[in-house]
């Protein structure tokens, strides 16, 4: 399949492919174990040293100023090589876009290189026990103190928080529901912070609860204006749902493995499910190239990111279910496919449940009444 890529992008693709073939490790332990976390951190450092950790970032922060198209191509190669999952993903895909859009030059210079090299690994801290889909119901608070703020409260379902270094999320600085929130970064390994790991379906503590009791953070840990946290968070929330966290490469690689699994032992009754999985990945790829083209000509990624999320989350589950069904009695024990399956199950839940996303599509894109 020829996408008529320009020579520079083709050269970039070739470089990434050969570098990954030579360098990408396989079989790292789960990043949600202490040992696996450090192994993944070390791998990200290697990636960073090859300037492949954050290719689309400015060179000053460890990137290559690559185009968005090249980043998508990088992701295709990364997943095709079955290179390790990115332990730094909460930082580089969720926090970094916010820093680029709303952070100060000082914040960017101080935080981004260490994020890109995984010297500092970040955990997201969006949810609270009473604030899931209803994120504006946040209760955790920030109280003004000399030169900074005292953070208190409880965050939950914080991915990577079990082993990460720092967190980011919204805290209440006044009583107004949406306008009383401020975007903070904070340490996870500091006095007053307690992290309680929570085991996920695979048995590993992929997320955690974070308890904060008057944890001091200086003023420079606020992103954007005080009281403007909701808008700051929402302006880049589409990154989580849309392009960055789920690039097509992941699904293309899974689809190819599924086709190979089927062809190794073709069950005609399952053929259509396999074709649909493959086609879904192709569709998402071309759709993404369309989005990238639009963004490159100055468009923005708004409610449309909900379309992405609905599609990839359903596709991901369907592909893994198909694989498990193809495996028959071995489906119950199929390590890699089961890991991917359990991971896929979180797709329709996190980053805004799919029910919320369908509301967004209906109201903001189709214009249906609230």
């Amino acid at each position: 399949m020829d996408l008529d890529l320009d020579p520079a992008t083709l050269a970039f693709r070739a470089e990434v492919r050969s570098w990954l073939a030579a360098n990408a490790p396989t079989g790292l332990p789960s990043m949600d174990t202490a040992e696996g976390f450090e192994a993944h951190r070390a791998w990200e450092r290697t990636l960073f040293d090859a300037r492949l950790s954050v290719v689309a970032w400015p060179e000053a922060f460890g990137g290559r100023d690559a185009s968005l198209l090249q980043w998508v191509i990088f992701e295709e190669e990364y997943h095709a090589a079955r290179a390790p999952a990115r332990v730094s993903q909460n930082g580089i895909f969720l926090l970094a876009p916010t820093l680029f859009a709303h952070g100060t030059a000082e914040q960017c210079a101080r935080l981004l290189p260490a994020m890109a090299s995984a010297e500092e690994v970040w955990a997201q801290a969006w949810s609270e026990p009473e604030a899931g889909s209803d994120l504006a119901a946040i209760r955790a608070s920030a109280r003004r103190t000399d030169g900074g703020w005292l953070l208190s409260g409880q965050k939950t379902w914080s991915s990577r928080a079990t082993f990460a270094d720092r967190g980011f999320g919204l805290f209440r600085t006044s009583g107004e529901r949406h306008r009383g929130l401020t975007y903070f970064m904070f340490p996870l390994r500091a006095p007053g912070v307690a992290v309680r790991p929570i085991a996920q379906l695979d048995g590993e503590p992929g997320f955690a609860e974070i308890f904060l009791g008057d944890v001091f953070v200086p003023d420079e840990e606020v992103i954007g204006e005080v009281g403007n946290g909701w808008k700051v968070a929402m302006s880049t929330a589409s990154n989580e749902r849309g392009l960055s966290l789920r690039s097509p490469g992941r699904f293309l690689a899974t689809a190819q493995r599924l086709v190979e699994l089927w062809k190794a032992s073709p069950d005609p009754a399952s053929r259509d499910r396999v074709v649909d999985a493959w086609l879904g990945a192709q569709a998402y790829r071309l759709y993404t190239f369309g989005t990238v083209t639009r963004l490159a000509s100055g468009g923005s990624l708004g409610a449309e990111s909900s379309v992405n999320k609905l599609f990839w989350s359903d596709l991901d589950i369907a592909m893994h279910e198909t694989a498990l069904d193809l495996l028959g009695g071995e489906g119950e024990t199929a390590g890699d496919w089961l890991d991917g399956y359990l991971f896929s199950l979180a797709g329709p839940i996190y980053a805004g449940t799919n029910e919320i996303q369908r509301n967004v599509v209906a109201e903001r894109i189709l214009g249906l009444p609230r």
Partner: protein
Amino acid sequence: MKFALSPEQTQFADTLDAVLAKSDVARAWAAGDHEPGLAVWRQLAELGATTVVTDGEPVDMVVVMEAIGYRALPGPAVETVAVLPDRLDGALLATVALPPHVPYAVDADVADRVFTVQDGTLFEATPGKRVASVDPCRALFEVAATTELGPLDGAFDRGVLACAAQLLGAGRALLAKSVEYVRQRTQFGKPIGSYQAVKHHLASVHVGLELARPVVYGAASGVLPASAAKIAAGDAAYRAARTALQVHGAIGYTTENELSLWITKVRALHSAWGTGSVHRAKVMEGLPMK
């Protein structure tokens, strides 16, 4: 492959739609009065829409067929625009059967030229018995081959892609009509479009169409097989049709409401030019092991 239409293509699509939007010719066509529809086809021909395959980029043909699908224009569109444009010889409309997947020639009673393709060879043909389609605008005819005209390459794939584009356009129209209806229809004191069930039905339709579109255009660019386009657009449009009927309720079930033109056409095109099973078999065959 380009991932956006060129300004010229966008303008061409707008021009076509302006012509098509003014036409309300389907009921007359179904009743055997072809003249109003033929007038629209003449306008399209003047705009070059029936010769894009020979004159333009492959994507242009998809632009034309999507526009035709959006307005449910009757007539042998796939056949004239995509399959036989270089066999028109100045005539307006042509039609063709390609057994086994296209067993009948649509609108052979009104087409200027009638063909059949057997094992890759094109024949002139004469129409025989008429067979009823679920779409009252599609008059289907058995055909008998007469003069052999030689090989016709790629005819089926071009037809499949054109059919996919027509389905995509029809699906988009069904969604647009549904959105419009649920915003104004009230029950229990509020618009039915404010109910979450209706919202989620239509959101799913939108997602399906949004992801089918790049597959259709990708197939036009040679990045994906034509079969992929038919699968994606066929399923997305069919879902749009089922949902449109469901959110309209009984009024969508009448032939008085224009919705029925799209609903029956999408059902017909879903069966025509190879079913999902036929095309999934073709796609799987072409998939590499690595």
